[in-house]
Structure formats: structure tokens, C-alpha cells
């Protein structure tokens, strides 16, 4: 199936001379939830802003739903809903008015029933007549989500949607996202909460210093990540790993006090039992042990560390 978004050779150099995106190639499949991860200043917002028409690209092409974002901007933008990272809201408008405004701006006929549903889904219904200035930060963020949903986008960009939203409402927000996905909406989100990506995303992309460094199915990624590390704190330090233990590919810490063993939790045999037996045979005793699962976060950290 044709991708709903295709980005090719996209670069952005700001007027200051700073290059924030460098030759980005990326395809987003219809209906998927794509999590874009990357440290501060990696270029996530810049990429989203270009796709949505807020920032001009320096070079490269972007198509949304097969429509070029410049040549055919109307068709392209009509498909997109954007929740920007920064809280940009009017102050004196009511919630209802600002959400209705967004729908009109995207050329859609009035639909009070839909807006009512959106506001209820986002727990904003009791605030519908409130002036935006009287809302809390988390409420304003949800108003911005409501604005983006008001025109029934097929592609939704959520640039750090859960920043500043409390735990309970965050869960509610993810329910909304799942519902949208079920309705066929493609969702691209950025987040600094890696558990969020782990929980929600179908695919994960990591961007660092303006370059995409990894795009992978989350399931595959998690498989790769399905490894655990067993650490043994030895009773007595050793200088080298005995020859007999070579098949386990153990690593010995520099100070000689710790042995580490990596194993696959999904494998038929983890090899832990025989390792422990062989350790005893080799006369190595330990005082403590711990196991640790590697996570998306570890991968992420190792990717973005230069």
C-alpha cells in the first residue's frame, strides 16, 4: 500500500545557517502509530512543521496522501491535524468557539454533534463555554488536541502531546489515540517518555542531530530488546574468566568483581542453570545477583550517544 506520508531527501537549513534536518527519508504507512524519538533539538518539531506547511523546506520532497505539500497544498493539508508542541491558544475565545473555528478553517461544514463528542472524549465538555485563558495548562493542551481533531484528519501529528498532562488524563488521551487508530487515522507522535512509545507505537523512528538513525517495527525492536543481562557480584575478585566458561561469552568488569551474562528470554534455554553449575565447578562464588531487561530507553540512549 502506498505510504500516507513520504518524505524524501528533506533538508532544512535555517536562516541562521543552522542545519536542523539533513537528507531525511521517511515513509509512514497508512493507519500506523509512528513514534518519533530523539533528544532535544534533534529536529522532530522541524520535520513536523515542514510536513504541515509551517516551515519551508530547504530541499527535498514531501507528499501527504500522494499530494505534494507545495504543489497540491490544499489536498495535502486537508488530511492533516496538528497538535504543536508549544501551547499556542487564544485567550478570550471560548473552548467551543475555538474548536469550531478550527473546523471552519479546514473548510468543513458545521457539526456540533462531532465537536461535542470530541470535547467529551477529551474531558473538556464541562469547559466548553469557558474562556481559554481560565484553563490550566493540561486543559489547554487538550483544547489543542480537540482543535486538531475537529476537522477529522486522516493523519494526526502529536508533538509531545502528553507533556504536562497528568497520569490519569494521559491514559485517557491514549484511549483517544487508540480509538483514532481503530478508525483508520495515522498517528505520528513525538515523546520523551519512552514507555509511551513502547506502549503505543507500531513503529519507532529515532532522529538525532537532524538525521534519522533508526526506523524499526516496534515488535522487532522489542525482540531485539528481549534480552536480559544477569550480573553476578563475586565473593572474590578474579583476573580472568576461566577457560571452561568461554562458551557463555561472559564479560568481566574492569575491577574484576562482576561477571555479566547476556541471554535471550525468548530462547528455549536461557543457559542460566548450566552456567551456575559451571561457575560452581570453576570455584567461582558470588554474593549477589541481579537481572536487568534492556529497554527501548537503553537502545535510544546508545543510539543518540555519539
Amino acid at each position: 500500500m502506498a505510504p500516507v506520508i513520504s518524505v524524501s531527501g528533506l533538508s532544512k537549513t535555517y536562516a541562521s545557517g543552522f542545519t536542523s534536518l539533513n537528507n531525511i527519508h521517511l515513509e509512514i504507512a497508512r493507519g500506523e502509530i509512528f513514534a518519533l524519538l530523539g533528544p532535544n533539538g534533534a529536529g522532530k518539531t522541524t520535520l513536523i512543521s515542514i510536513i504541515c506547511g509551517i516551515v519551508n523546506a530547504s530541499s527535498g520532497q514531501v507528499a501527504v496522501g500522494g499530494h505534494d505539500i507545495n504543489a497540491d497544498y490544499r489536498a495535502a493539508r486537508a488530511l492533516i491535524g496538528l497538535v504543536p508542541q508549544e501551547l499556542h491558544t487564544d485567550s478570550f475565545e471560548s473552548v467551543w468557539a475555538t474548536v469550531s473555528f478550527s473546523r471552519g478553517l479546514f473548510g468543513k461544514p458545521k457539526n456540533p454533534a462531532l465537536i461535542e463528542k470530541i470535547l467529551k472524549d477529551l474531558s473538556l465538555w464541562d469547559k466548553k463555554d469557558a474562556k481559554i485563558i481560565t484553563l490550566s495548562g493540561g486543559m489547554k493542551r487538550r483544547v489543542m488536541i480537540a482543535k486538531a481533531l475537529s476537522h477529522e484528519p486522516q493523519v494526526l501529528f502529536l508533538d509531545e502531546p502528553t507533556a504536562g498532562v497528568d497520569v490519569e488524563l494521559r491514559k485517557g488521551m491514549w484511549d483517544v489515540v487508540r480509538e483514532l487508530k481503530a478508525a483508520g487515522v495515522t498517528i505520528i507522535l513525538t515523546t520523551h517518555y519512552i514507555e509511551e512509545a513502547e506502549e503505543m507505537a507500531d513503529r519507532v523512528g529515532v532522529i538525532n542531530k537532524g538525521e534519522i538513525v533508526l526506523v524499526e517495527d516496534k515488535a522487532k525492536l522489542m525482540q531485539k530488546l528481549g534480552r536480559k543481562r544477569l550480573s553476578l557480584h563475586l565473593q572474590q575478585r578474579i583476573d580472568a574468566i576461566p577457560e571452561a566458561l568461554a562458551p557463555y561469552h561472559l564479560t568481566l568488569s574492569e575491577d574484576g568483581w562482576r561477571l555479566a551474562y547476556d541471554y535471550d528470554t525468548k530462547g528455549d534455554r536461557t543457559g542460566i542453570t548450566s552456567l551456575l553449575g559451571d561457575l560452581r565447578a570453576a570455584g567461582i562464588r558470588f554474593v549477589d545477583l541481579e537481572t536487568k531487561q534492556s529497554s527501548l530507553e537503553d537502545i535510544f540512549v546508545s543510539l543518540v550517544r555519539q
Partner: protein
Amino acid sequence: MNLRAVGAIYKFEMARTWRTILQSIVSPVVSTSLYFVVFGAAIGSRISEVQGVSYGTFIVPGLVMLSVLTQSIANASFGIYFPKFIGTIYEILSAPISHFEIVLGYVGAAATKSIVLGLIILATAGLFVPLHIQHPVWMLTFLVLTAITFSLFGFIIGIWADGFEKLQMIPMLVVTPLTFLGGSFYSVNMLPPTWHTIALLNPVVYLISGFRWSFYEIADVRVEISVAMTLGFLVICMSIIWWIFKTGYRLKH
């Protein structure tokens, strides 16, 4: 054409007027009334007729223009500057809407406001001096053209401004002097020859002259020239706006 989007922007802008009704309508009406008291009644009683009409009557078209000019610029510049300032412009830029439609929404609303205001001021003037309008259609044409042109001009200022000082600067340093010197309170024919020539470089002279002609058939310059100058300024403003959107000047990085 995304008419719903134009309508949404227009409605949004008009709603802003209702929220700020005092400063949008009441204050220009009050200041115009003060002009009438000071210039029309107090000073005007000591000035003989100007080109066959009493001084109080003479200044009516100029006063209306003064308000229409300044309010068009103020409304339109603020209307586009503010979303830029608070960041809500992101939504306008990401919407499936053409540049022409954006301008139509913002400038249409700003022009509507100043036309309504111009008519209110005209009605206020009617309370102080007897009004007679020889060419009502031309009067409305000049009013509408001026409102649109200067709303476009205000839109440009709003996009250009990157701070509140700049937003105020052009209206204060350029527009207000030009309107005061543009013959609101006198006929440029009253000026000595050198000043008369200099005055003719002021575009506002042509607007006020044409507008006054539609009231009393008295004019400082030929009415055709007034129309041409107004249209010329309109075209210049439209070209600048076309260029702004084409390049994304001060709108897109």
C-alpha cells in the same frame, strides 16, 4: 475556494471587535466629537467659509477619512500581528487555505469594521453640522476603497512588525502626520505654492480630496486623479502582500 475558512477568519475577527467594542467604536466616536467641538465650533466659528461651505461642514469628510485610515491600519495590523505574536498563526499556516483567502478573511473584517465606523462617524457629524452628500455612490466607493486599501496596508505592517513598537511606529510616525497634513482640516489650495507642491506628494491628499468632492463637489485635485491614486495604492499593497506570501516573509522560517 475555501469560503468556510474565509468565513471562519472573518467571524473570528469580528468577534474580537465585539469583545473590544469600547475601543473599536466608542473611542473613535468620542475623539471625532471632540474634533467637532474644538475645530468645528470653537475655532470654526472664527473661520469664514472654505470654498463655499462652512468650516464645520468642510472638515466632515476629512474627519471620517482620518478615522477610517487609522482604524483600518490598526485593525488589520493587530489582526495578523497578534496570532503571530501568540503563535496561533500555526493553525492558519497549516490550514488548506490560500494566501488570497487568508487576506480576504483578515482584510475583509478590518475593512468592514472601518466602513461601519466611518458611517457611524458620519452620523455623529450629522449631529453637529447639516450634512449633504452630492454623490452618495462615489462617497461609498471612496469609503470602501480606502478602507480596503488601508486594511491591506495595515496587514503588511502587521506582518512586518516583530514587536509592538514597530506595530505602533508606522501609524504614529507616518500615517498620522500624513493624514493631518493631507487636508483634513484645510484645503491644500490654501497653502503657499511651495508647500502646495510638497503637499501633492502626500497620497492622503488625493483620498481626502476625492472623498470631499463626493460630498460637496469641491476638490483640491481632479476627482479622476483621486480615484487613480487610490487604486494605485491598492495595487501596490496587493503586490507587496503577494510577495510576502510567495516568500513566506516574516511568516515562515
